[in-house]
């Protein structure tokens, strides 16, 4: 290729020799420092490949001479964080539940820890604000299936209910209809009796005397003669204003016919003891704790 470069008469600079429709391009090379910097970055990049993980291989990647790994950094940071938290959590693990609630610093820690762990583990059933849902108790209120003291709450979290854990709460609401214990009309009568217990209206023609007898024969063993429930068996108080599944007649008929057996998993083994303590304090502090 012949060199067409020439000296431009106006600027006095040489041209590149390229020409487009009479327009010639001035030869304006990049400044020396710029070019040198560019070469330096290339050298730097090569050094980078050597020192740090860089190239993907078939099943792994080049690891670099220092064996640096961002994942390892994260692991170290997480370990440090756990260590920092650890010291505080040890204090939490040592204090009694009642003392945690009395100590503003420990209470704040337990509530913060409890809230996080609750969100990760409990919120799917109980809701992020612990407001519960049908079949899943609201933990903010003062009605407790298995007891609302700090120790009782902790036991429920630790061992669960109908969880299969040896120490878990046990107690069954029988399927009075499905198992043929009560006939359909008797179930309707019991349902109305239960409504009457908490002052709700009853259907026309409801026989109160029959209801009383049926309740005493079938339900009182768990729910108590007055229907006040029994926390040892997880039998709810039927006289209050809180209903786990619903207080309308059809829901009650469904409950009596098919029984109920909500499961609360045991968290022992899945969460460490200090965390379970924090959870118990958190749930207790939501407001309903006894």
């Amino acid at each position, binding site marked *: 290729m012949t060199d067409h470069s020439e000296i431009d008469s106006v600027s006095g600079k040489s041209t590149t020799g390229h020409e487009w429709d009479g327009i010639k391009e001035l030869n304006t090379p990049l400044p020396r420092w710029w070019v040198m910097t560019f070469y330096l970055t290339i050298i730097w990049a090569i050094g980078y490949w050597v020192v740090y993980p860089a190239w993907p291989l078939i099943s792994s990647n080049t690891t670099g001479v220092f064996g640096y790994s961002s994942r390892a950094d994260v692991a170290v940071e997480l370990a440090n964080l756990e260590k920092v938290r650890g010291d505080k959590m040890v204090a939490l693990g040592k204090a009694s539940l009642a003392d945690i*609630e*009395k100590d*503003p610093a420990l*209470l*704040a820690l337990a*509530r913060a820890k409890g809230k996080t762990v609750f969100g990760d583990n409990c919120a799917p059933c109980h*809701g*992020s*604000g612990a*407001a519960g849902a049908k079949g899943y108790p*609201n933990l*903010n*209120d*003062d*009605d407790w299936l298995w007891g609302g003291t700090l120790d009782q709450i902790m036991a429920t979290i630790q061992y669960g209910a109908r969880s299969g854990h040896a120490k878990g709460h046990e107690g069954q609401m029988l399927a009075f209809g499905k198992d043929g214990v009560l006939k359909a009309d008797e179930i309707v009568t019991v349902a109305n009796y239960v409504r009457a217990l908490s002052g709700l209206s009853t259907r026309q023609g409801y026989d109160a005397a029959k209801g009383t007898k049926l309740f005493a024969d079938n339900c009182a063993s768990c729910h108590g003669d007055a229907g006040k429930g029994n926390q040892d068996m997880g039998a709810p*108080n039927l006289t*209050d*204003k*809180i209903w786990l599944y619903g207080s309308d007649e059809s829901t009650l008929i469904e409950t009596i016919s098919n029984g109920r057996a909500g499961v609360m998993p045991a968290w022992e083994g899945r969460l460490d003891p200090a965390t379970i303590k924090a959870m118990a304090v958190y749930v207790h*502090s*939501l*407001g*309903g704790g006894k």
Partner: protein
Amino acid sequence: MNKAVNPSELKPEADVGPLYAPHKKVYPQSVSGKFRRVKWGLMAFCLGIYYLLPFVRWNRGLGAPSQAVLIDLPNSRFYFFFIELWPQEVYYFTGLLIVAAVALFLMNSIGGRIWCGYLCPQTVWTDLFYAVERLVEGDRRERMRKDASTGSMKLGRISEIVLKHSIWLMIAWWTGGAWVLYFSDAPTLVKQLATFQAPMVAYVWIGILTATTYLLAGYMREQVCTYMCPWPRIQAALTDEWALNVTYRYDRGEKRMSVKKAAELRALGETVGDCVDCYQCVAVCPTGIDIRNGPQLECIQCGLCIDACDAVMRKISRPTGLIGYDNDINIHRREQGKAPIYRIVRGRTIAYSAIIALVGGIMIHTLATRKTLEMNVLHDRNPVAVALSDGSIRNAYTVRLLNKSGFDRVIAIDMNGPVNSTLHVVGVDSVTPDRPMIVIGRDQTSEFRLLVTAPAENNTEKSIPVRFHVTDIGLGVAASATDNFVLP
């Protein structure tokens, strides 16, 4: 229709020069006089405050920092003698900035850019660096000669340059060093710095400020004022015809001529100018301008040309004040044979003073009546209300109490809200019914969970206003906050 134009026939405009002006190094000559003394005094004062203020102690009691001026970033506190500010009170700085801005306006309407000439850190440090340069390398002529010499450098010259830059770097280092002392306990940090045990961030900031001081005061100097700083440009909009700027009184100075010629003409009874064209005003100027060309954007109003000119005038037995803080109005009045008038007190200076007094007054008032106990209440959102087994309703609130005082407080909480409602603070056993007591440590915030329970009877409104009160049971200081009690 436009005619076709051959570009080669178009002539470039004659006065279009290059847009870039190469830097001309300025070699200000030493000068002595009234304004130079003021500048030395202000330099000592400003630098003295800057370098020594972190070491001033202030007793705030045990456990609180004992440094008079401290920006405590880790604990989010700002201490200034008896004042302690929390992050949410950063609006005080708004007031401070307003006062500072209007004070600059006021200075400008009285004496032009006197801030630039006397108080601006750029001027103060540049002045100091020039003093070092003069001390090591000699005065204007010597420095110009040394810079112009092209031959190989002698050892003496090299050692001069090394010495100058070493002193500059020392000053720059101390500038950064003093800066970091405002953010940590000064004596402790000095000890740490001396034993190389200070936190990394301290070294980084010292490094940054060393670099900026060295570059801005050692190299960029007047270019900062001429090209970088916005304030000189803003001042053009703030100045008026009464502002006293450094002015060459051309009514007295023109026509310029030599001392001898002027004496001859005076002997003949002719009126001649006082300016003898000695160029002393140019020689001493730190921005390298000739003030006799009238007001210029480079001029920082430092008054050094006044000192230089006055010295010359005294030497040739003419009245001083050929250059002085003056304005065009007076030049014209003197040309017409009238007495000059100086109006320091006029509309805008009164207005600026009033704004400063007003904003300053508001700041002092708010500082003096600053609340040291505050309460914030946040209603629970999930769930907003809880129905209890007996049918009553409970709402939960997160209460944050701020104790900005230097001592612990015992606080009692009560409220006005729904009919027959009760109050409970989680983790606190009420001593008196419905009036739980809480202890908040000094200079701290405390968060509590507060439960309000109300029977369903008599409380049928969907949302009932509730007002919480906290009272320091010892001192009676109180705070309150309002929220709502919501039914499900």
